[in-house]
């Protein structure tokens, strides 16, 4: 499959305010996801009508845990019967994907998956699978992670070494070559299962690593 668009959101990224206007209630996890997905689609130069059957696959290790802990605050502070429905709906892993489809006008297949070490790799596998069976011609496949003090405390007490930053990266992958072609990638032959979305994005965005096939 071919990577024909890339969108990255980190703390240094200039935010596209026009997109954020429609998602004021969304939490930061969802906002990062939407921005990166939007940027990847725009980067690809594909036509708007492509979105009708555009797939979206979002991967994450920990999901919107910051919102989950806020929801737990509600339970502890106000009791079971008085929690916020908004916090609950945003604490669900696939809320971000729902925001992507509803705000970007995407009606194709959408999937959210989680794995603590290789969720992005699994997401690429799903994308490749969808393209091979012609479920769709293009897929936005991304990885989103958020930083928070609770998860920082947990990981620092469990893992000897850990690295958790926040941000979001999306690739628009296609079955055929498109207007823009960063590289082709065959996930089944990719040897390093522990690839992260960010390292792949960084690799691709540096001209010296502008490869035709990632193996």
């Amino acid at each position, binding site marked *: 499959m071919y990577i024909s668009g890339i969108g990255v959101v980190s703390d240094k990224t200039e935010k596209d305010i026009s997109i954020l206007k429609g998602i004021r209630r969304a939490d930061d996890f969802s906002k990062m996801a939407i921005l990166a997905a939007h940027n990847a689609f725009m980067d690809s130069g594909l036509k708007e009508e492509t979105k009708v059957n555009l797939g*979206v696959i979002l991967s994450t290790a*920990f*999901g919107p*845990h910051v919102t*989950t*802990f806020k*929801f*737990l*605050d509600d*339970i*502890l502070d106000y*009791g*079971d*019967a008085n*929690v*916020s*429905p908004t916090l*609950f*709906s*945003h*604490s*669900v*892993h*696939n*809320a971000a*994907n*729902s*925001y992507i*489809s*509803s705000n970007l*006008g*995407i*009606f*194709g*297949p*959408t*999937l*959210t*998956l*989680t*794995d*603590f070490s290789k969720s992005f790799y*699994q997401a690429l*596998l*799903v994308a490749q*699978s*969808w393209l*091979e*069976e012609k*479920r769709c011609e293009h897929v936005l496949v991304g990885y989103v992670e958020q930083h928070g003090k*609770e*998860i920082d*405390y*947990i990981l620092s*007490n*469990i893992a000897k070494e850990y690295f958790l930053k926040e941000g979001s990266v999306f690739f628009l992958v296609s079955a055929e070559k498109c207007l823009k072609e960063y590289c082709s990638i065959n996930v*089944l032959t990719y040897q390093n*299962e522990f690839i992260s979305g960010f390292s792949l994005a960084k690799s691709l965005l540096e001209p010296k690593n502008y490869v035709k096939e990632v193996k």
Partner: protein
Amino acid sequence: MNIAITGLGAISACGLNLKETITNFSLGIRQAREVTLFKTDLNYPVFEAKGFIPEDKKYMRTLSLAFCAIKEAIIEANLTDFSGIRLGICLGTTVASQLNDVDFYKEYRKNGSAPVDAAKRFLESNLAQAVKDYFHINTKFCCTLVNACSSGTDAIGLAISWLRNDYCDIAIAGGADELNRVPLDGFNSLGVVSNSLCTPFDRDRSGLNLGEGSGIVILEKEESALKRNRTLDLFFKGYGLAADGHHLTAPHPEGRGLERALDFAMHQSDIKVDEVAFINAHGTATRDNDKVEGRVFRKVFGENIKFVSTKGFTGHTLGAAGGLEAVFTCLGLRYGWIPKNVGFTHMDEQIGIAPVGVKTDIKGRYAISTSLAFGGNNSVLVIARN
């Protein structure tokens, strides 16, 4: 390529195995009660897997439920030795994906520190990964889907894709979820939980009841199943998946995504609407879901389509629902009958069609299972009997 179903496993409040489930379906027995698994201020009927004893408390309850259903499925599939098999694991969940241990967080919030045992257990509870470790399976096709209430259906759908694309020969697929305080509070906050036993598709329905369980299918390429001398009676034919692109918590009023998902699944299966013997509906008993889903059924399949929601027997088991209902759809085709839609009394004129009111014999080779998820995701499986 034909994808055979060579093993089934189910655990829910309707039964701790397939045999108990079939008996309770046949007799129309439903076993809801007050919450006993955790403390809560909420007083709603729920569908706990009564009598289920997790084998080891080191695992999240969700994992234990999954292990139980998988064991039943792999026994039917005669798949006790995984060596030398190209196997995939694709499972859906919601609760096992979230770090929502209230006790841990309460102490952490109070003291700025807390024992991380619960968090450690969470980090060891990625569902597909935990199944891979528990059963000592060597595979890189190991995926946990968190697509809310369609997670189990989507896990089966993705596993079908893996087999058709020749990534593996056999796959363990389905979903699992435990009854948990956090989603109970959350669904209550959304105003969709019923004070009484749920009544899917009924005119006077007042919301869902939560449940728990696990539903598992063993999927296998036909050639692999024949090599292993398995009796082939059930097959997956198609899988459709489409987003509403509409709203975070409400389905599209015209069921736009569901119709697209149905269309894709039927097209992939190469069957016509009049060949569908019955539908196992998502049927949560919420006002919106049942109205949208029922109206799409009427539009696509006509007024005489037979359909049932089994959530009156199991409650809404979230990430397990798609797996359980795929198994129930298989049972309907295998045994030639579907249970009555328990709780249904009055037809809703806004829907215009009614689910089966009694245990009903079915004829025909094809059946459909639908899942409509939080977030506007719609998933459809088409299953066939030989």
